[in-house]
């Protein structure tokens, strides 16, 4: 194994914040906007994506020696589509209400750029252990990003969190937050905040020469 490639631990930590798939890489935006009107659907989607990402990464890294260069995207897509079908069926069997609420967004995991890009960047080049760590890190980062957006939207929009009321009953409930415009605005503002935080950290680093 070449020693200049990131280790498993590095891959894991990378996925959570430094290379967060939503806030830093801007991949996989479609489910982020669609399922974050509540914490429950957001976490279900995060779990489904994690399942597909981990299984696909493991599978691809196991067969990485057999991949032909110009057919590899085909193989990735086949693998991902299979695991997405399995995830979709599992959801329909065990959490039917959530499955109905998530609707077409579970099969849309197939075209979620996060998974294909992880297969391409990590799983097709490194062993199963590293691939699993990478998948876990990315899934955790994805779940955190979804949770941040869903929290804002659900609390402001319905006054609840995970279905439990957290705001006084008099809260009017900003209906716009659970509708499409609220999704776009929330994500735009949170992205702006994340970008501001990272720009400030870069400025501090440049000024202080590494002092945190």
């Amino acid at each position, binding site marked *: 194994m070449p020693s200049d490639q990131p280790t498993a631990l590095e891959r894991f930590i990378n996925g959570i914040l430094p290379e967060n798939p939503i806030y830093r890489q*801007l*991949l996989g*935006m*479609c489910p982020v*906007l*669609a399922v974050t009107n509540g914490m429950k659907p957001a976490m279900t989607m995060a779990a489904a994506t994690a399942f597909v990402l981990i299984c696909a990464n493991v599978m691809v890294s196991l067969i990485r020696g057999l991949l032909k260069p110009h057919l590899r995207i*085909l193989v990735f*897509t*086949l693998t991902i*589509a*299979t695991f*997405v*079908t399995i995830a*979709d*069926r599992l959801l329909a069997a065990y959490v039917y209400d959530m499955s109905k609420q998530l609707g*077409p967004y579970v*099969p*849309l995991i*197939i*075209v979620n*750029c996060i998974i*294909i890009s992880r297969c391409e960047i990590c799983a097709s080049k490194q062993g199963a252990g590293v691939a699993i760590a990478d998948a876990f890190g990315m899934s955790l980062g994805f779940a955190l990003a979804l949770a941040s957006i869903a929290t804002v939207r659900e609390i402001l929009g319905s006054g609840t969190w995970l279905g439990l009321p957290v705001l006084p009953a008099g809260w009017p409930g900003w209906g*716009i937050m659970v*509708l*499409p*415009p*609220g*999704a*776009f*605005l929330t*994500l*735009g*503002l949170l*992205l*702006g*905040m994340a*970008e*501001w935080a990272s*720009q400030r950290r870069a400025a501090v680093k440049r000024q202080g020469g590494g002092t945190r």
Partner: protein
Amino acid sequence: MGEPEAGGGEAPGRGHALAMDTLATLILIFVGAALINNFVLHYFVGICPFLGVSRRVDTAFGMGCAVTFVISIAALLNWTFTYFVLRPGAPLPAWVWAAAGGDPATQVDLSVLSYIIYIFVIASSVQLVEMYVRKFFPPLYRSFGVYLPLITTNCAILFACLEIMKHMQDPTKVWGLHEALALAVGGGIGFTLAISLMAGIREELDLCEVPRPLKGAGIALIVAGIMAMAFMGFTGVDKGVHAALSALLR
């Protein structure tokens, strides 16, 4: 309109009413997919190209047209597969099962293979379109660059196929090819509309003082939110269109 009121049961009158009904349904599906439930601003599919390719109006419009073209082809092929092979109660698997001596009462359901077949048909459609554009419109092909193959991962196309599949699950009311194409073409045109509008706005934004943290994706999403609010004004339009069409076409 001068025509006698079509009484129930008269063959030509009933046929006329049925044709008008179908036309009204098609118009409603089309307008619904393009404006009321716009793929980008209501269903959140196709966001990646929406944010990525919407810098200039001509590229955005070209991308929109390419996506519309690919959606139509993919919907056509996927509808055919779904109708004959993949839906519950499809004729081909039942025929093969019966020919192989299976019990005709058990229903053969191949819908578990749907997603795999859909994504492969989409990838093939994109390949087809790419080869076609490269052969007949080389300058267009060069200007598209890497974006054309990326249409495969465009959620909008798979989403259109999934919506069509959703309406083919109940054997008593299965969507025909005309309804599937109305949805696909309407969705593609809605996508083109949204992405061109966004490109126009972003061209103007380039001349504005956008705060640094919001430059790029941040401000694009906020603009998209305001656009989505505007498109929410179309809610309830289909009721009015339906009433108008009923009055007009009877």
